[in-house]
């Protein structure tokens, strides 16, 4: 693949990661949010795959396959099982309304762009200029955790942070060693599985997945 085509594919992959992060703030339906997260995982894996193929780095190619399998398929599948059917599967009243959080996401993107100048200057390769997109994904993930009430959207926020960090790592350093990536992936998967257990427990007790229900003592 030519140099410009390779750069275009990396641009596209990093762009999709950021847009998926914004879509999770835009949509109210939990199923749509989880689908956006799955697409983000696939795009993240694509970025790693292109980097690996370009640098002839076999370990990075393996990592990219792990990323696609875990973040693009396994985690969304587990989350989908927690998402209930019916009207409770919507984020009805987030703490900050949707237009305001979208504008905040835009502002955070600009902030990430403004503060990541030194990091971009540190990275010698051309991929470094995409680092702000990863940082913006991290910030949007924190925002999603702060303003959303449903357990599923909060865990999606955490996963956004994780994906953003992974994107920055791939772009800035050419990826983690395989062992580190496997460890981090297992950690995240464990968190999601714990949420799955907690979610079904919460639903059977209170009938909803609102984390506000956990703020006071129940019988």
């Amino acid at each position, binding site marked *: 693949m030519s140099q410009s085509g390779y750069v275009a594919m990396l641009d596209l992959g990093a762009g999709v990661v950021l847009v998926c992060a914004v879509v999770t703030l835009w949509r109210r339906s939990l199923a749509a949010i989880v689908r956006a997260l799955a697409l983000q995982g696939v795009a993240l894996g694509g970025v790693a795959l292109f980097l690996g193929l370009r640098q002839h780095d076999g370990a990075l190619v393996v990592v990219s396959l792990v990323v696609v399998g875990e973040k693009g398929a396994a985690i969304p599948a587990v989350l989908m099982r927690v998402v209930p059917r019916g009207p409770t599967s919507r984020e009805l009243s987030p703490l900050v309304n949707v237009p305001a959080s979208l*504008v905040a996401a835009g502002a955070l*993107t600009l902030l990430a762009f403004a503060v990541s100048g030194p990091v971009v200057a540190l990275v010698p390769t051309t991929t470094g200029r995409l680092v702000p997109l990863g940082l913006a994904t991290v910030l949007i993930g924190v925002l999603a955790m702060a303003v959303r009430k449903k357990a599923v959207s909060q865990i999606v926020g955490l996963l956004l942070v994780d994906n953003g960090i992974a994107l920055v790592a791939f772009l800035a350093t050419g990826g983690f060693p395989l062992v580190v990536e496997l460890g981090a992936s297992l950690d995240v998967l464990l968190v999601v599985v714990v949420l799955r257990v907690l979610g079904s427990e919460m639903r059977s007790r209170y009938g909803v997945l609102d984390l506000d229900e956990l703020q006071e003592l129940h019988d």
Partner: protein
Amino acid sequence: MTAPPGVAGAILVVCAQILVAGIGGPLLLGLMRKTRSRLEGRVGPPVRQPLLDVRKLLAKQRIRPQCGSWLFAAGPLVLISTSVVVAGTAPLLTTRPPLGQSTDFFGVVFVLLLGSVFLALAALDTGTPFGGMGASRATTIGALTEPALLVAVLALSIPAHTSNLPALVREGLSDPQVIASPGRILALAAFVVVVLAESGRLPVDNPSTHLELTMIHEAMVLEHSGPDLALVTVGESMRLALLLGLLVNLSVPWGMATGSGMASLVVGTVALVAKVALAGIAIATFEVFTAKLRLFRLPELLAGAFVLALLGVVTALVSR
């Protein structure tokens, strides 16, 4: 066969663009209604029905409210004039329209906005509550779409280093990779939402209802009759055709005339009509499966378009 050179050729191209937009606009409206009817299992009116309506309206008596001022008469005239100006100068059939040097994308946005403003003023002028309500809603939506549109234009013009509309189209034609760049895709996605909002289609406004409390555009033009209404219909449908034409030329510019030959102009016309017709059918199909959004939910949709455009700007800056 070549077009006559110089001024005559330029006038020919401008007239051809205005004619295609003026006749194609109402036909596009008819095509979208026909598509919708067919998908819903009805036969529907013929595709040329809007043109027949316009002919009938033009022959009717002009009735204006006694309490209206000059603004009421000016509304339809300004609307149709802005549509004609944009149709004459925008790169529709050819990538080098004769007046293309001055066709700035921001300028096109402002000229189209002028028409909407005068239509809203004409609706407010007579003092009927219905027109005022429609005008207030239309202005609210306009105030939310304009930022998204302007930021999308900015995102499109950053890689090209110009906001000249023909230059943007030519850049896409010469280098397909520009079209596939994330910045351009995001900006065009925002542009699609803006087109739906600006032309009053679902899920923003329901174009097929007349007496419903939630309607926007039809409430504004309720007081117009006869030739005035014909002008409004033609102006609005031209605007839809123009916005769709710009959208398809920015995203799939292939087939447009690049030189000044007569044959390439004909090919460009056929290509434009085919692309806009496909886009219209796609929108009509989408409308069948969509419900109108609540008015209070509209800011979410338009804020989403704004953020998409903003991300387009950021990615365009990053990948520069």
